[in-house]
């Protein structure tokens, strides 16, 4: 095993980890506020197609800024999609599991509909943050050779961890997720806070989706997020709702997914390639089992997770 191989592998790990880290960080905030949004996959796809469409259509007029416009577009689209979920779940008190699934199905359909005319087109990949000379040598490439979204993901997860644990607003958000009735009775706007959390989760899922269509493969393909949205949901459970563990867990899953890619490409595997493709999902179930068994009292999950709250109006 030589250095170049290790460098390649590390770069791949960072690449595949970034979207699940972004999406899971968003979902962490949503779940901390007591809402379970299973529609991550759908919001990611809507973000993916929107980011691509914006970057493609404004590629000429905006030049270097087009990818940034794409990312912002993806965030706005993801947040807008999440508001559909928000109105149903928060204002109309609908079942969160079913509504989240509806959002996932809707996102898959809508993104295919919008994306139908973009199939086969290519944009400039959004994969450079620092000047070339910084990323020239192998070590530099690991540190500096990535898309801006990679660094944004790291900043966001740290910021969310700080927000949740060290700010007053974060404390209020957690209070809403732990005991909505009490939070309501001492005057916090439970529903408004949950709307904000859901929108934030949608925006990050949208950005996560744009990573697929603007960085990994700078083109659009139907269902290109390939179930990573569901992995992000498992990751939140894996993290036991803590930002630090979320970061570690995301890289753990990233390594697993990289193994799959390498097993497929090199043929060194003695196990069938399908085994490696199934590996992240098998591991997701395994970690769910370990984390749930440890948390027998259910103490780590936000107490109001998934429970509708209907204040009297």
């Amino acid at each position, binding site marked *: 095993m030589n250095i170049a191989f290790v460098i390649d592998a590390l770069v791949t790990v960072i690449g595949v980890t970034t979207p699940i880290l972004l999406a899971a960080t968003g979902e962490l905030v949503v779940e901390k506020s007591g809402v379970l949004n299973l529609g991550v996959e759908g919001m990611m796809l809507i973000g993916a197609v929107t980011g691509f469409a914006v970057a493609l259509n404004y590629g000429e007029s905006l030049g270097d800024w087009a990818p940034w416009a794409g990312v912002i577009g993806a965030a706005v689209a993801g947040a807008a999609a999440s508001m559909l979920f928000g109105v149903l779940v928060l204002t*109309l*008190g*609908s*079942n969160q*599991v079913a509504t989240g699934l509806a959002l996932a199905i809707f996102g898959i359909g809508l993104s295919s509909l919008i994306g139908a005319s973009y199939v086969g087109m290519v944009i400039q990949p959004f994969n450079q943050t620092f000047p070339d000379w910084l990323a020239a040598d192998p070590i530099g490439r690991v540190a500096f050779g990535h898309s801006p979204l990679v660094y944004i993901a790291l900043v966001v997860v740290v910021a969310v961890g700080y927000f949740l644990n060290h700010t007053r607003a974060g404390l209020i958000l957690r209070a809403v997720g732990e005991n909505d*009735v009490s939070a309501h009775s001492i005057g916090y706007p439970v529903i408004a806070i949950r709307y904000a959390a859901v929108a934030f989760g949608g925006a990050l899922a949208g950005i996560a989706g744009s990573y697929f269509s603007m960085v990994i493969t700078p083109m659009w393909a139907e269902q290109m997020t390939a179930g990573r949205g*569901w992995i992000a949901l498992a990751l939140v459970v894996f993290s036991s709702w803590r930002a630090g563990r979320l970061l570690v867990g995301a890289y753990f899953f990233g390594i697993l997914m990289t193994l799959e890619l390498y097993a497929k490409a090199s043929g060194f595997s003695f196990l069938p390639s*399908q085994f490696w493709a199934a590996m992240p999902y098998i591991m997701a179930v395994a970690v769910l089992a370990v984390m749930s068994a440890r948390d027998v009292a259910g103490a780590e999950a936000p107490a109001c997770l998934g429970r509708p709250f209907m204040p009297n109006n």
Partner: protein
Amino acid sequence: MRIRLEKRLTPSRIMQVATPIASVLLTMLLGAVIFELIGFDGPDAIWQTFITPIVAPYKWVDVLTKAAPLIIIAQGLSLGNQAKIWNIGAEGQYVIGALAGAGAAFAMPADAPSFIAIPAMIVAGILGGMAWAAIPALLKTRLRVSEVLSTLMFVYIAMQVLNYLIGGPWKDPNGHNFPQTPPFSPTQTLPHVIPGTVIPPGFVIAGVLTLLFWLLTARSVYGFSVRTVGAAPSAARYGGFDASRTVWSTLMISGGMAGLAGILEAMSQLGQINLGFPSGYGFTAIIVSFLGRLHPIGVFLAGLILAVTYVGGQVAQTAVHVPEATAGIFQATMLFFILASDILVRYRLRIVRDPRRTAPVGVPA
């Protein structure tokens, strides 16, 4: 003047029937407007999607063929949903059921008589689906793993099992290197439709199952226990209904139904298993379950409506050139409407004239 919500003591019967119908109609209306806005002939697209499959007799076979697996899977899912046990992974159980049935077919001599081959494959299919749902059931009852995520993860694992088997050990040696199994023998297949009719064999089974599920939910203690576990877990415990037995039974029944749907589809429609076998019925059945308001008769009708949108989606694709994804959007929109209107079943809308008079009474749902 403003609108106030008052919780109903019992869910409204009228609303339970009216809201699904309204959801379908609103979906059609919204669909027409959106298609018009994005540059298609809106009314025509809706006509082709929702009406053509019903009025054109040559589409009836297609509709009933698609309705059969949707109804069979959704009957099982509805039972679990009543207990608030969410089996999201019917698609995986459907695939594994079909593979198990195919395994039984390949294990027996190809000329085994039909009266042995067909029941053996069907039983294997049901057991396959149950086995795939058993792992999440075990994880849920032993380790408290949420079945929502585990059943879903097993869909992705099932897809890889399928890819492995049809591309490896079970690959058709005469299949021009396509990833597909050899065809089932004539004694291992069911006809597309019952000869002389437009009714596929799976649809007959779906009809019989609808009746059985109605008896089970409306007329048995078991059905009552499932509803109680869902509506009032502590009352169910007090009444002696075991929650973990409900988890097991509902997941076994829904997994078995999905497996049954899978092997029936393989035996009567494809005659083999190939890459295109997983067609999303397991996911669409979730919509069927909610659109049918978890009631066996409602599920039967909802299965027909969703089947119409599948067939109609293809009609509209060729006639009005709307993209293929259209059917999925209609299906999701219908689910959005039905979930949104759920509030009308549980609450009464009151128009309050004097806002100062409303006394705040907490109604945590």
